[in-house]
């Protein structure tokens, strides 16, 4: 359903684009009222671009309409005149006293959508991002608390099957029964969202039922969108049915499915509030490769101390394909720890020397923002002369918009990674780890920056490798905390 429109800067395109936005919104699941708000926001943005960015001159711009699991993201990219939205603030007093409506369109956009972000890309033009959330009924609106609390009776036998969209409601009820309101992936409380994701085929999952057909176990692989790997997650087993081998049965089935689907690896984002998930991952051969600090907002976990801070996760990786030797560019600063991470995965690495690196004309960075989790991942595609400046600008913009954690992925097969790592550290980024096969089947060095206080006392890790990574990350955090705060 994702679509990109290439448009001429012409007043006549405003209404067709507005109509398209309205229909796109309706098809995505917005109510008529919310789709109209989205359409008006697009009308305002496109009008501003035609009138002010190109000032009625010939020009072209692009609008991408993307549908995520629970939101519509519209990205507008144009190369018109420079613009700073902060200098165009609407004020009703100016309307009354001077007939001046400056900034009215921007004020409307900000209030009609859930997130509105402006990114100045220098010579690369300007980018506007509009996010409109889609509202679905919560599981508690469909069933009462009492109905969902009934624990399935003890079973004589269990049946494992692959999940279909019809299982969505049972999965949501199971999550609610086991975790109450504390499960961090909020979408699991919305059966309609689960159903949509399953229909799109982005998730391979298994469900375990008792001989009476009641759901007692669920586990999934969420396919990465830009690489042939998948995330194992959303594991849940009903309390009375634990210790019966259900988790083992599900994990084995998922690994088989992943191989059958041609995935090259699986990873887990295991929370560090406790080490239960990390232990499960280790049992099945997953190896820790990174520690992502403050990865999602604070959630209370029954019986565990969380320190009221954002939740950190370790990346545990299980390769499903043989990888013996690798030649990569290893930044001097992280030589020891990176070699250990690869060794732990059974991969021998050779450090490539930089011989004839030339920066590209343009820096290309793909930015994936999750407003819901207050985090952004910057994926570096190419290093240009303005690389550090571009990263700095992006980080500033994201911080201003309330993003709490920024991660940057640097391709280890590109010499630029070796060259720019120290400058990123000077900017305030610190080590996170290696993200194996994470984008286009290639390995990336991840660095991170978190704008909230983190007490490493509440970050619990299990494996030896995870301890080594945690030590490295916490040391660098101590060193760079002030830089992160002042950016």
């Amino acid at each position, binding site marked *: 359903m994702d679509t990109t429109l290439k448009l001429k800067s012409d007043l006549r395109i*405003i209404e067709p684009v507005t109509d398209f936005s*309205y229909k796109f919104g309706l098809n995505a699941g917005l109510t008529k009222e919310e789709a*109209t708000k989205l359409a008006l926001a697009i009308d305002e943005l496109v009008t501003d671009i035609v009138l002010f960015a190109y000032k009625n001159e010939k020009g072209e711009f692009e609008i991408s309409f993307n549908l995520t699991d629970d939101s519509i993201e519209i990205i507008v990219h144009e190369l018109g005149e420079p613009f700073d939205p902060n200098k165009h603030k609407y004020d009703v007093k100016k*309307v009354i006293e001077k*007939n001046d*409506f400056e900034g009215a369109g921007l004020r409307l956009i900000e209030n009609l959508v859930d997130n509105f972000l402006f990114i100045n890309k220098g010579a690369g033009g300007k980018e506007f991002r509009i996010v409109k959330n889609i509202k679905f009924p919560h599981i508690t609106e469909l069933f009462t608390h009492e109905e969902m609390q009934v624990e399935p009776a003890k079973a004589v036998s269990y049946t494992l099957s692959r999940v279909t969209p019809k299982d969505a409601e049972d999965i949501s009820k199971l999550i609610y029964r086991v975790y109450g309101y504390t499960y961090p992936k909020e979408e699991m409380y919305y059966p309609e969202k689960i159903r949509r994701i399953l229909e799109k085929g982005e998730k391979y999952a298994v469900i375990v039922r008792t001989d009476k057909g009641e759901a007692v176990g669920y586990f999934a692989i969420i396919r990465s969108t830009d690489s042939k790997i998948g995330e194992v997650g959303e594991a849940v087993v009903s309390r009375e049915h634990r210790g019966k081998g259900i988790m083992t049965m599900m994990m084995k089935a998922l690994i088989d499915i992943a191989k059958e689907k041609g995935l090259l690896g699986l990873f887990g984002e295991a929370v560090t509030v406790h080490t239960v998930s990390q232990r499960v991952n280790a049992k099945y051969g997953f190896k820790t490769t990174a520690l992502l600090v403050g990865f999602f907002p604070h959630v209370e976990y029954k019986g565990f101390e969380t320190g009221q801070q954002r939740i950190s996760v370790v990346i545990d990786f299980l390769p499903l394909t043989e990888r013996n030797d690798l030649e990569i560019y290893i930044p001097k600063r992280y030589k020891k720890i990176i070699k250990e991470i690869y060794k732990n995965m059974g991969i021998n690495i050779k450090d490539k020397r930089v011989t004839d690196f030339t920066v590209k004309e343009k820096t290309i960075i793909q930015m994936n923002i999750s407003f819901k989790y207050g985090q952004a991942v910057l994926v570096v595609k190419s290093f240009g002369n303005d690389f550090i400046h571009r990263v700095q600008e992006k980080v500033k913009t994201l911080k201003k918009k309330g993003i709490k954690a920024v991660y940057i992925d640097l391709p280890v097969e590109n010499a630029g990674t070796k060259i720019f790592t120290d400058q990123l550290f000077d900017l305030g980024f610190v080590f996170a780890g290696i993200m194996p096969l994470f984008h286009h089947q290639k390995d990336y060095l991840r660095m991170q920056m978190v704008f909230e206080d983190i007490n490493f006392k509440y970050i619990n890790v299990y494996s030896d490798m995870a301890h080594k990574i945690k030590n490295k990350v916490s040391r660098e955090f101590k060193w760079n905390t002030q830089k992160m705060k002042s950016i």
Partner: protein
Amino acid sequence: MEYTKDEKHLKIKLNSDFNIVAVRKIENLLKVEETEEIDIDLSESKIVDSEAIKFIYLKNKEGIRTTIHHPPEILYEALRILELQDIFKKFIAE
């Protein structure tokens, strides 16, 4: 856009959104038609944007009594956001 003229009273029915394009069409009309009063029927408009709001406000300020009829609900939301709902009460027909 359809319109009728009765002396200096212009009656317009928009069959599109009330946006910058519609505003410019009406402004072009005003250049050739001497007008003291405008009534705009918005029963077929899905959207009334800030350019249209500005137009209604400024025309009334200029002394051309401009009234809108059957506006879409989104207009009230837009006026609330722009803190203009009280001022616009007199520009919207009951």
